[in-house]
């Protein structure tokens, strides 16, 4: 059988097809699990915020309201798909696809546990940053094509916000890259495991803080959700979207949160590993699979998103820009200089 294929197609065809098959399987597993996580992130958010506001949150659909995300999904799927009469139709159709696709593409380079990554490329971190800026195109196109003042203003705000905060995010990750000496996310995690503190969040506390704040702005979350400020812009750039297109923006946004949390986990909190001094102290913890640690850290960061959302009011737009340019970027630059100095000095000492 194998010989037959090799002779009629090409030598090595079976190996190649197996390789493709394994990748496709991985893609399906990652996408399905990530979308399930996204679905339950909305449930988790509603529960957490409800408890912080002395409410209960969803509880009627299924046990403890666990089927609420599916009910919402079905509802969105069957809603009427309204397109404004003066909308720029091709761009209007394309915008949510770009947004959602760029969010999902980011999942391909994330190593969830040791050795499990769809595309183990050596510029993983750069790829993630590129994808998150590509998502901004979806937002801008949606705002422009909707032919609505709210969507347009939301799109403009989002564009300037994402561009400003991308710099802060990129710069805050430079410290990690210097310390790990690689852009590959798996290598970064392994470098952290070999580092005495076990995670880069401790030596890179400045970069970590800048990253966390900038990630809130990058994903358009409160207190930096100006592109979709309900009290000013109805819903911001997706005001005119309904039905499944709206769902794509919604899913893309929550996937973005998941990815930002994953980047923070991988680059600062040690990914699927736990610090060596903990496993030396409590050896049985090393038998826990890596995915558990990874997910625990990601869930914690997601919880922080909701925690911050239910605590802080929205910033004013000039305050947002001031924080980005006058605080976060100088801090990130200072972090790079410090990290570089320490690294080169310690190398000089050796």
């Amino acid at each position: 059988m194998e010989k037959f294929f090799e002779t009629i197609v090409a030598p090595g065809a079976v190996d190649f097809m197996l390789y493709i098959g394994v990748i496709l399987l991985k893609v399906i597993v990652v996408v399905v699990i990530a979308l399930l996580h996204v679905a339950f992130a909305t449930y988790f958010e509603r529960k957490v915020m409800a408890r912080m506001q002395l409410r209960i949150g969803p509880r009627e659909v299924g046990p403890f309201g666990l089927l609420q995300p599916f009910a919402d999904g079905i509802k969105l799927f069957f809603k009427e798909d309204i397109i404004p009469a003066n909308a720029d139709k091709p761009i209007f159709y394309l915008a949510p696809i770009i947004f959602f696709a760029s969010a999902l593409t980011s999942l391909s380079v994330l190593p969830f546990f040791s050795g499990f990554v769809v595309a183990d490329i050596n510029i993983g971190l750069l790829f993630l940053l590129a994808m998150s800026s590509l998502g901004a195109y979806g937002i801008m196109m949606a705002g422009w094509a909707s032919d609505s003042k709210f969507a347009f203003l939301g799109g403009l705000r989002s564009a300037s916000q994402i561009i400003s905060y991308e710099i802060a995010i990129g710069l805050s990750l430079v410290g990690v890259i210097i310390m790990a000496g690689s852009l590959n996310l798996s290598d970064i995690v392994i470098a952290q495991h070999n580092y005495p503190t076990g995670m880069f969040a401790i030596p890179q506390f400045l970069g970590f803080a800048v990253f966390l704040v900038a990630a809130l702005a990058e994903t358009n979350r409160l207190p930096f959700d100006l592109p979709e400020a309900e009290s000013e812009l109805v819903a911001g750039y997706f005001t005119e979207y309904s039905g499944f297109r709206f769902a794509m923006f919604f899913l893309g946004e929550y996937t973005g949160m998941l990815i930002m949390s994953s980047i923070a986990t991988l680059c600062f909190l040690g990914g699927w590993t736990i610090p060596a001094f903990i496993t030396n102290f409590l050896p049985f913890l090393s038998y826990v699979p890596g995915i558990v640690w990874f997910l625990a850290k990601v869930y914690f960061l997601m919880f922080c998103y909701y925690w911050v959302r239910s605590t802080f009011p929205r910033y004013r737009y000039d305050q947002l820009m001031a924080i980005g340019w006058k605080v976060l970027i100088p801090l990130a630059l200072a972090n790079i200089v410090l990290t570089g100095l320490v690294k080169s000095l310690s190398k000089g000492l050796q």
Partner: protein
Amino acid sequence: MKKEVFLKSISFIDLIKGLAFTLKTFLFTKPVTRRYPNKVKIYAQPGFRGLHALAKDEDGRMKCVGCGLCGAYCPSQCIHIYTTEGEDHKKVVDRYEVDVLRCIFCGFCVEACPFGAITLTEHYEYSAYKKEDFYMTKEKLLDNWDKYMSGEKGRRYFLDFWRPKSEDFTGYKGQAMFSKTKPKEKEQV
């Protein structure tokens, strides 16, 4: 910039206080939600003006004679009465219909009725999906009497709060009232 303000702004003490407060609420404070209608049943206050009902006498016959006073009083004109001449020139009420969606629950029909035939019950949970379900026909209204006004409780409610003219034209001592004219006696109910 003052020293304290500067220290506050770089130490994020206010932000941390806010975060601590929400975390404290999340962990330790119980939700205040009352889970109506699954877990918590909220009963109507005494004298609540709920769904309409047509009264029956002891023999189970409809008290209404079809005089049409209720319909004449009704400010929103939601009572429709159709009568015909029956055997030996008796008036027969063919249809007695209340459009509940138009009703404003003023209770004038009950006060107007000389026979104590129409009343409002304490029942208020009657949401439905169709408009027709809110259009009360004679049969439905008579059913409502059996459902919500049967027994001693219904009788007391009817007498105490609706003071039907057929029973007592002037009221009696200890009569419950809606208005604030007798605030002290209200507590006896």
